């Protein structure tokens, strides 16, 4: 590696350059319009899940904060967007912003708690917050519809022109554009000095304050950003499916997104994206009417990934290409 000889600025600049592979990846995301026009709904689900996984990657992959309750913010965004459209109006972008604001606000409040803890206490507190919100949403039947889900979400066309259709053409384009914009933001954050200090916190949370980095303030910032992104992902789901169920907040969703990120490779910007594609396509193909067997394969996969592929699919690929270049 020649990285060691670079100055930090040059390193960040080199990292921030768009590579041909990246450009090809984003162009390829348009392919479903021609290749799989019947699967556009699935494609929009994948884009939403990828955004959710990206938000988790920011805190888990880069700052090293393990969260078992990230669906809390996803669900907050989803319920906010759903309620806005049901009670105020169905304009999509303002719904997204409302979802982002609510999730971000709660995320900011929670970040003061999260930044103080590590290890088991952190895992338990994030898990507890997720469960708490699920119970809250369940008991506030008058607002959320409880177990029956939130009914009556109706979306207006985006910018009064693009109507949400049955095949998910608009939904996919909408989700993809939002995903891309937020991906660019995340990429900018990661390739900034702030992003570098996050990685420092992940590697050694005690040494970073000694180097002058305000660890807890950094953790609060990135946690809030991550909550905003998760909220937007949730809002997208509520708007594109026009329904919100309790499941958006549940432990299952938090666990799934963790699996997706680990599968793709945590601490890599494309990890969540690749993980979401593999996971969602596999689930669509294999789960069918027996979801419990799907979890058999997910569990086996997790065990194998932890033992043989510690950096996920992308980490494995990077290792392969590195050894191939050396040879």
């Amino acid at each position: 590696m020649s990285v060691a000889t670079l100055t930090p600025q040059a390193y960040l600049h080199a990292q921030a350059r768009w590579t041909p592979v990246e450009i090809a990846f984003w162009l390829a995301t348009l392919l479903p319009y021609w290749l799989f026009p019947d699967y556009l709904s699935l494609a929009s689900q994948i884009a939403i899940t990828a955004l959710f996984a990206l938000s988790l990657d920011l805190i888990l992959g880069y700052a090293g904060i393990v969260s078992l309750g990230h669906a809390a913010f996803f669900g907050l965004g989803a319920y906010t967007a759903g309620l806005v459209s049901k009670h105020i109006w169905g304009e999509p972008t303002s719904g997204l912003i409302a979802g982002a604001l609510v999730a971000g606000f709660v995320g900011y409040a929670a970040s003061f708690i999260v930044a103080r803890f590590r290890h088991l206490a952190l895992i338990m507190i994030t898990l507890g917050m997720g469960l708490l919100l699920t119970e809250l949403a369940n008991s506030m039947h008058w607002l959320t519809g409880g177990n029956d889900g939130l009914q009556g979400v109706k979306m207006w066309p985006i910018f009064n022109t693009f109507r949400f259709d049955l095949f998910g053409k608009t939904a996919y384009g909408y989700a993809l554009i939002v995903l891309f914009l937020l991906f660019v933001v995340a990429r900018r954050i990661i390739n900034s000095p702030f992003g570098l200090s996050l990685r420092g916190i992940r590697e050694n949370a005690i040494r970073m304050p000694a180097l002058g980095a305000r660890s807890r303030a950094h953790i609060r910032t990135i946690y809030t950003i991550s909550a905003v992104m998760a909220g937007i992902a949730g809002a997208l789901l509520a708007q594109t499916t026009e329904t919100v169920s309790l499941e958006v907040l549940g432990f299952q969703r938090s666990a799934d997104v963790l699996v997706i990120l680990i599968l793709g490779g945590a601490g890599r910007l494309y990890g969540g994206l690749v993980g979401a594609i593999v996971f969602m396509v596999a689930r669509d193909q294999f789960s069918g009417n027996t979801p419990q067997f799907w979890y058999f394969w997910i569990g086996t996969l997790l065990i194998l990934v932890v033992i043989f592929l510690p950096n996920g699919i992308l980490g494995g690929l990077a290792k392969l290409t590195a050894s191939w270049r050396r040879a």
Partner: protein
Amino acid sequence: MIGSLFGVLFDGFAYGMLLFLLSVGLSVTLGMMNFVNLAHCAFAMLGGYVTVTLMNRLDWPFFATLPFAFLAAALLSILFERVLYRRLYRASELDQVLLTIGIAFVSVAVAAYIYGTVQQPVQMPAYLRGSITILGHTFGVYRLFLVATSLVITALLVAALEYTRFGAQVRAAVDNQRMARGLGINVDGAFALTFALGSGLAGLGGALAIDIVGLDPAFAFTYLIYVLIVVSVGGLGSIGGSFVAATLIGISDVAGKYYVPQLGAFLMYLVMIVLLMWRPAGLFGRR
């Protein structure tokens, strides 16, 4: 009202004892190795299914199945410890969480494949059914049995930990693992044994739990959350802490569901978060 209060307290205590059996093993192993084992309740579920199978398919009496529930969970946990867990003692907690969640997923799927997703029917022997009245209060016989069993097991555990050589080694390893190694204690061996014992107790707890909470493949996750709450509130590596926390949570859960059913488990989660914020190492934890 007073009568029902007493009944709620008793039911809550019995439920707490069940949680204690399920969680004490995880508490001690977490305290020793800092290994986050989210598959703990999968071993408990195994114990439950062993009992169900022996009773319903082979017509064994309930009591005869209990030792096998214990043994099956203990033996399988030794196998897992040797083959999988061992590799990850020095890994990050994220890797440990992922591996053990993976095992829990697989266990749920396997249970659903063999037994289906329905609740397993169990017919308790006649002498454990019904209730008796003492001093005007009615007690479920099975709950009395559960409380008595748990108290005996607790006493045995405390005695073993306080007065045996093995117990002293375990306490030393929980207090300071590196120092214990330095003094020549075989921490790995002690850990493997504790792990098997803890999983065995979970298996026993799973078998005893069937009559109270039922048994289906979701058990591995539903009760994992309760167990984790008990462990993190009680403090790692503390049997007394687990006992107190399990009692508290059992009573508050039963009381909450009885008096304010619309809140569900909300209160319990709130209490856990507040307690952890006040004392991140748990009520009785030292770290």
